[in-house]
């Protein structure tokens, strides 16, 4: 597969949110606004790229029996690194995302890519795969965040263009499910047409 294909695959055909339906917990919980969705996506992408690289490096020497523990330790390490760095340098972002940063450890996307791709491909390809899937996830979260922010608060990225309150349900959990469902339909319809 071409290098470019590796990136676009994660973006469209294997989009983690709309096609594979992985990592739903942060998807539903952190997309209350476009900015939150974007930040969560970037945080996950950071972990995804680094863990993909390291796992593809160590995969040939790791015995099959301890494969999963080794991957989880590596992923957890990068998540903790990310958590500490965010706390130190972007405390405001850390505060909004809070609990969902440590939860990246158990995000199926990260372990899924390690199992399905990084452990049988080269370092370079794994890095590209991480970038592709990471971008796909970031894009999906941002889109959900934009829709929910427009409907729920009448603003985009904090820029308010409809005065007053929006439809409150969209800021809360039920709206997350609705927006996700409709976007999933649209996305897959578009894919099927192609």
């Amino acid at each position, binding site marked *: 597969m071409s290098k470019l294909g590796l990136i676009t695959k994660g973006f469209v055909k294997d989009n983690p949110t709309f096609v594979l339906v992985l990592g739903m917990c942060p998807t539903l919980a952190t997309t209350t606004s476009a900015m939150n969705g974007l930040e969560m996506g970037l945080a996950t992408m950071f972990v995804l790229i680094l863990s993909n690289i390291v796992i593809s490096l160590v995969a040939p020497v790791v015995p099959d029996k301890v494969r999963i523990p080794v991957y989880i330790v590596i992923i957890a390490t990068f998540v*903790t690194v990310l958590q*500490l760095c965010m706390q130190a340098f972007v*405390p405001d972002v850390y505060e909004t995302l809070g609990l969902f940063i440590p939860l990246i450890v158990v995000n199926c996307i990260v372990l899924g890519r390690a199992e399905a791709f990084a452990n049988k491909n080269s370092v370079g390809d794994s890095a590209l795969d991480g970038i592709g899937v990471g971008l796909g996830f970031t894009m999906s979260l941002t889109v959900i965040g934009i829709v929910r922010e427009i409907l729920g608060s009448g603003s985009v990225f904090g820029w308010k263009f409809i005065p007053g309150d929006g439809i409150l349900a969209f800021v809360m959990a039920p709206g997350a499910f609705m927006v996700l469902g409709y976007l999933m339909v649209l996305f897959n319809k578009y894919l099927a047409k192609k």
Partner: protein
Amino acid sequence: MLLCLTAVCLFCSAILAVTYAVTLDPIAEASQAKTNASIARVLPAFSGNPELLSVKVGDVEYPYYKTESGVAVLSTVNGFGGPLSLMVGITGETPEVFNTVVLSHSETPGLGAKCVSEDFSAQFKGWNPEQKKLQVSKDGGDVDAITASTITSRAYTLAIANAVEAYKAIAGTNEEGGQDNE
């Protein structure tokens, strides 16, 4: 197998140790800056880093920061959706609320969550509990509640009332405890 696990764990702990050492100071600075920013909002200008002290009123411990001009009390009560934490700046001999700021809350978005906005909290600026009653108007007090969020408004008001009690205790003029809304 054992060798491999050991090696991976050693490698990972090394990365973590380095990151921890590097970020230790920035994290402490960031949290200090955040505290100072909150204090600066609820009290008149101050200098240096106020020290964290605490006072016991009844059974409840109230942490507070003292500056030259007043005291910033941390007061937590039960809101509608969970704990509601306020920092209440109080000044003067007859306690007067200088300003309040919400530190953390889990109120309903669009309803109780409005308690963080100036529209609601501005009314407490310069509030003197001797002259105006710290209770929502529904309960016979002088506080204008947020529409459709009486419970949050009550909790907010109670947090301030408790902070005032704590302030009196700091000044050494109060033996009674604050109220609990559990």
